[in-house]
């Protein structure tokens, strides 16, 4: 092991293993996760070349091979717990997407939830056995987050008892669904339902797209891959154009809404349940933000401990770059953010499961708040993680730009999270709608509960200048609880400001919608402040649950750093709101620098606690043993351009040119 890293690990003030248990949710779960990881690590069937040296088609092929093997092995090993399946899948594919993602994650669950008994019998078992491979085709080339704008039509023909699916325009072509391009033979297609001359809105249809056996596209179906992307090389995101394509009436998913043989439409009883899937996916994405940022931090911090550069004092040996204050200032706030998001991810999962029990008992009361919260937190965490991963890459200097660092891959795999499953700005505005609704509710005299309960004590005189002087005395910059209060004040102030600006616009313009658009930048800021408050609250709330003293201390420092860094980056809000004075702000900046120094000795152990295996990181710079230079050299030698000493292009282009010049 690299001597720098060994020394760093020995000097840690806490036991990294115990912190891993906390992050996993208990020692037993850590043990089981590692057991599953080792099952895959030692299995020759999952071995393959370094993906960095392969073409897109080769990467797709390896992913298909691994997915097929994975489905078989999951059954052989009898792994059935959803979370364990997720660990397995994510480790097999090393956190990358794979062609069966939508089959396993959308097609099968949608059949389970929305298919009738008859449809389950017809489709589920063949799909379970991969005879049917499906995808979920919702997004169109011209329409994304705004679902009502989708153009694909499904028109019922009572004469033949069939639906006619059609893509009427170029913008209506289904575009992006994963696994659609090459892998799937069926798709669940979302289309506007027309029967008896009426449009009944979006419904889901099971559409066969390729012939079973030959895998050739069926007549009337134009299907293919949408071409190269920023990342997602392994995934065949596809397009689908249907030309008056007929499917039997029984292929509409009819557990809720139905079309009778004569074309009569029967309305569904309750539609709120579809919220459930969205909430689940978005809360899962919060966890993904935490994992991706944690990986990037692990790589950048380990590299900064091994890399030596410049001199702090002339004549001294070159120090580890993590000893530079500017490097600490780049990385430690991100490390603190990664821990914060880990706890938020766990909180979201817990809350989802709790509320799911309520929902199954028919209690939907908490769903609106959870829906608003997951939308905002998905946007807040993915935006932050997105820029954080990129900052980690840049903190690794030139080597961060090489694929051997693993960081470019983490970035391109993660960044679509900002736009898929609801574009982030739109998500923030959904949260804002809930905040404004709650604010109006308080003003009409009704109390609100949950995370927005702070709006209850927002009697407007507290924002008045004469009262402001009372606030700063309350903020203790060494207390996570007190800082949570400060964030709460900021959220309250920005929600109130947005609500008042909205009112003012309404007076000028009359139209509610135009006023909303002209206030939307303020509304997004209010949502961000709300989410920031929630994250600080959850992080500081977790500290008291930790028994191990050394770990509690180190996490408390990270929590303080997270909160103080956020204040320094948004100091305008805190000054403008009269929440902090100038001299407190100076203390915040001073304290933040002290925390950098305090956290420094535990940096190696803190990233070790995330417990990523080297193959998961896929990074030469982030190797556990820190032997980066030797391995970088070995890695580069494997590059296909190095297969011959003289590349053929030399004979083809350069040599002839040289003789002419």
């Amino acid at each position, binding site marked *: 092991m690299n001597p720098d890293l060994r020394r760093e690990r020995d000097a840690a003030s806490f036991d990294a293993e115990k912190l891993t248990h906390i992050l996993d949710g208990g020692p037993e779960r850590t043990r089981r996760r590692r057991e599953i990881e080792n099952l895959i690590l030692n299995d020759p069937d999952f071995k393959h070349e370094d993906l960095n040296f392969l073409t897109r088609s080769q990467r797709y092929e390896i992913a298909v091979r691994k997915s097929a093997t994975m489905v078989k092995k999951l059954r052989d090993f009898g792994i059935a717990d959803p979370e364990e399946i997720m660990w397995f899948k994510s480790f097999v594919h090393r956190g990358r997407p794979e062609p069966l993602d939508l089959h396993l994650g959308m097609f099968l669950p949608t059949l389970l939830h929305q298919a009738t008994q008859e449809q389950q019998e017809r489709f589920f078992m063949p799909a379970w*056995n991969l005879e049917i491979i499906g995808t979920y085709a919702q997004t169109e080339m*011209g329409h994304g987050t705004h679902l009502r704008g989708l153009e694909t039509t499904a028109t019922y023909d009572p004469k033949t008892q069939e639906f006619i699916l059609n893509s009427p325009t170029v913008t209506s072509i289904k575009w992006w669904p994963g696994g659609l391009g090459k892998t799937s033979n069926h798709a669940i297609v979302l289309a506007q339902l027309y029967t008896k001359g009426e449009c009944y809105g979006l419904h889901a249809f099971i559409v066969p797209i390729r012939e079973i056996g030959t895998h050739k596209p069926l007549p009337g179906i134009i299907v293919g891959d*949408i071409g190269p992307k920023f990342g997602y090389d392994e995934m065949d995101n596809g397009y689908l154009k249907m030309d008056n394509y007929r499917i039997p009436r029984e292929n509409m998913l009819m557990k809720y809404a139905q079309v009778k043989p004569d074309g009569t439409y029967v309305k569904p009883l309750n539609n709120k349940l579809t919220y459930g899937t969205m909430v689940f996916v978005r809360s899962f994405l919060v966890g993904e933000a935490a994992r991706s940022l944690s990986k990037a931090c692990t790589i950048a911090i380990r590299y900064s401990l091994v890399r030596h550069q410049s001199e702090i004092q002339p004549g001294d040996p070159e120090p580890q770059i993590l000893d530079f204050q500017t490097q600490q*200032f780049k990385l430690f706030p991100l490390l603190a953010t990664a821990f914060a998001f880990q706890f938020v991810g766990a909180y979201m999962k817990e809350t989802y499961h709790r509320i799911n029990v309520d929902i199954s008992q028919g209690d939907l009361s908490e769903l609106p708040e959870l829906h608003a919260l997951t939308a905002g937190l998905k946007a807040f965490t993915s935006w932050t993680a997105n820029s954080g991963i990129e900052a980690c890459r840049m903190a690794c200097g030139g080597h961060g730009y090489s694929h051997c660092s693993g960081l470019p891959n983490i970035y391109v795999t993660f960044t679509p999270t900002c736009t898929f499953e609801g574009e982030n700005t739109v998500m923030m505005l959904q949260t804002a709608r809930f905040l404004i609704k709650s604010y109006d509710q308080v003003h009409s005299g009704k109390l609100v509960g949950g995370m927005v309960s702070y709006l209850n004590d927002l009697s407007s005189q507290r924002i008045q200048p004469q009262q402001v002087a009372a606030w700063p005395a309350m903020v203790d910059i060494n207390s996570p609880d007190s800082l949570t209060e400060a964030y709460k004040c900021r959220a309250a102030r920005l929600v109130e400001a947005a609500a008042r600006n909205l009112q003012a616009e309404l007076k000028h313009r009359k139209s509610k919608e135009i006023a909303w658009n002209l206030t939307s930048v303020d509304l997004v800021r209010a949502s961000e402040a709300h989410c920031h408050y929630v994250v600080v609250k959850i992080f500081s709330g977790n500290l008291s649950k930790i028994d191990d003293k050394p770990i509690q201390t180190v996490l408390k420092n990270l929590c303080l750093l997270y909160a103080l860094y956020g204040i320094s980056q948004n100091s305008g809000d805190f000054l403008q709101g009269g929440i902090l004075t100038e001299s407190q702000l100076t203390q915040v900046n001073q304290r933040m620098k002290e925390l950098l120094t305090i956290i420094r000795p535990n940096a190696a152990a803190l990233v070790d606690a995330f417990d990523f295996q080297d193959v998961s990181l896929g990074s030469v710079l982030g190797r556990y043993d820190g032997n980066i230079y030797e391995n970088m050299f070995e890695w580069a030698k494997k590059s296909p351009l190095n297969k011959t000493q003289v590349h053929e292009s030399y004979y083809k282009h350069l040599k002839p040119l040289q003789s002419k010049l």
Partner: protein
Amino acid sequence: MANQIYSTVPRSSWNKRVNPDLDIERKNKSFNVERLTNILDGGAEFTQKRRQVGTYLQGLETTATYDASTQEFVLNTPTLSATKWWPGDLGRTATHALILANLYSSGRCHGMHGFILPIRSLQDHSPLPGITVGDIGPKMNFEQTDNGFLQLDHIRIPRENMLNRFSQVLPDGTYVKQGTPQSNYLTMIVLRVQLLASEFIPALVKACIIATRYSVVRHQSKIKPSEPEAKILDYQTQQQKLFPQLATAYAFHFIDEIVIEFFKKSYQEIINGNITNLPELHALSAGMKAMMSDHCILGAELCRRACGGHGYSLLSGLPSLVTKVTASCTYEGENTVLYLQTARFLLKNFLQVQSSQSTPTLPQSIQYLASAGSGRCPAQRTSDFLSPQLYTEAFAHVAARLIRNSAQKLHNLTSSGIDQYVAWNQTAILHLQAAKAHCYHFTVKTFVESLKKLEKEPEIYQVIKRLCDLYALHGLLSNLGDFLYDGYMSRAQVELATEAYFSLLSLIRKDAILLTDAFDFSDESLNSALGCYDGNVYERLFEWAQLSPTNTEGNPAYEKYLRPFLKNNRSKL
């Protein structure tokens, strides 16, 4: 990149029409686009011509030791970490390399110098004896450049292969300086200044063009329920993403002209032996390189994300722009290190201001240090924030305060007995902030100066002034804490500035497409299905995707892995 092939294929009939949404944007001309293009090019004749043609150096461990007996330098990379890594074209293409190495002669080290080194045979291109060379493997971009590694095992080159414009080694090994050691920095400065115009700014400009054009073709949701789905550029949140980037693109374009002017003037002086301007030139090129690369990277990526899912497709052209410009944060000087170099220059001059009785003559870019005092922002109404003088002063005030503060904190530490190098590291974040504020002030001030030159053309002046105002106010509102901190601005003034900012967004909206057209980038150079001049976004996306090799070749993966898997399962049932 693969998509470069696609843009040359013949297109279908849709190519003959311009997307009506985009067409309408071009109808209401508030200024002459061609004239603005000419201004951007530096004159009508240049537009015509253009259209016709279509880090830490001391630490490197490579050594060059002079051998007087053979009059040769012996180049060596003694350890693995001294292996040269990254130079472009080294892996496969280059026959010679320009190597920076520590020069040893007559038993002494004379610091970094440049050497020309043959690395491959001119006959058969094989590496010369003693040279280990190769490609360093795949990267985020630059796939066409074979960035290479190079290990040298006691390679001998003739004495004449040392670059000796500013210093030389005589045949007997005597080292002779010509000019000053700082002159060696000149090569670096030249590179940095060239990069601004050739690499960073075009990346941001192109990203702005693509994202803005796409945003008037793309419709989503409704602003009012009774109306059709709106162009996404009509959403305030989309304007807030894109217009500050557009303003930055214009700001950088004009600032670059001024930097180059200053550079040319100083370069001539330095060649003639007058190095008075060298420290400022060095600080300015370092700071501008860092700031422009930071902002162009962030801006290009922001434009990419503002295009939603389609921005993730390589066919949008945006990922390639982003991955190319993003490498700039580290090459030719890592940005943090560069900011700190600027900070050293600021600190030095600040101390001079402080110690001298009379006002010293300061380099032009920091004259504000002598005049910026403890005043208050005088704004009383919204329109006051549209005064270039007012916001330029505000930026000067903040920069001066942060420089003063960083000097003060450094002084406190050193006077309490802490070693000056340790003290510098402990205050590095403050110096970084000071340098950033200084650079911001410089860009605002310079944009305002360029604006003055346009006063004779009122229509163009008006649209560019809005961009200048937006650039400044966006900078102010994104760093609000700095302006509120010492009470320079009041909370009420923040409200006024915000109001001014929002009013600019809707004014710029009207001219947005024409402002991107004025940059006059051809479809070929944009190479984007989303950003073409005619706006036929969806038709082009569909056509280009069908040409992808994944669609023209078969699907061996299905045959190999999925089909046998199915059979196997079926037989078990």
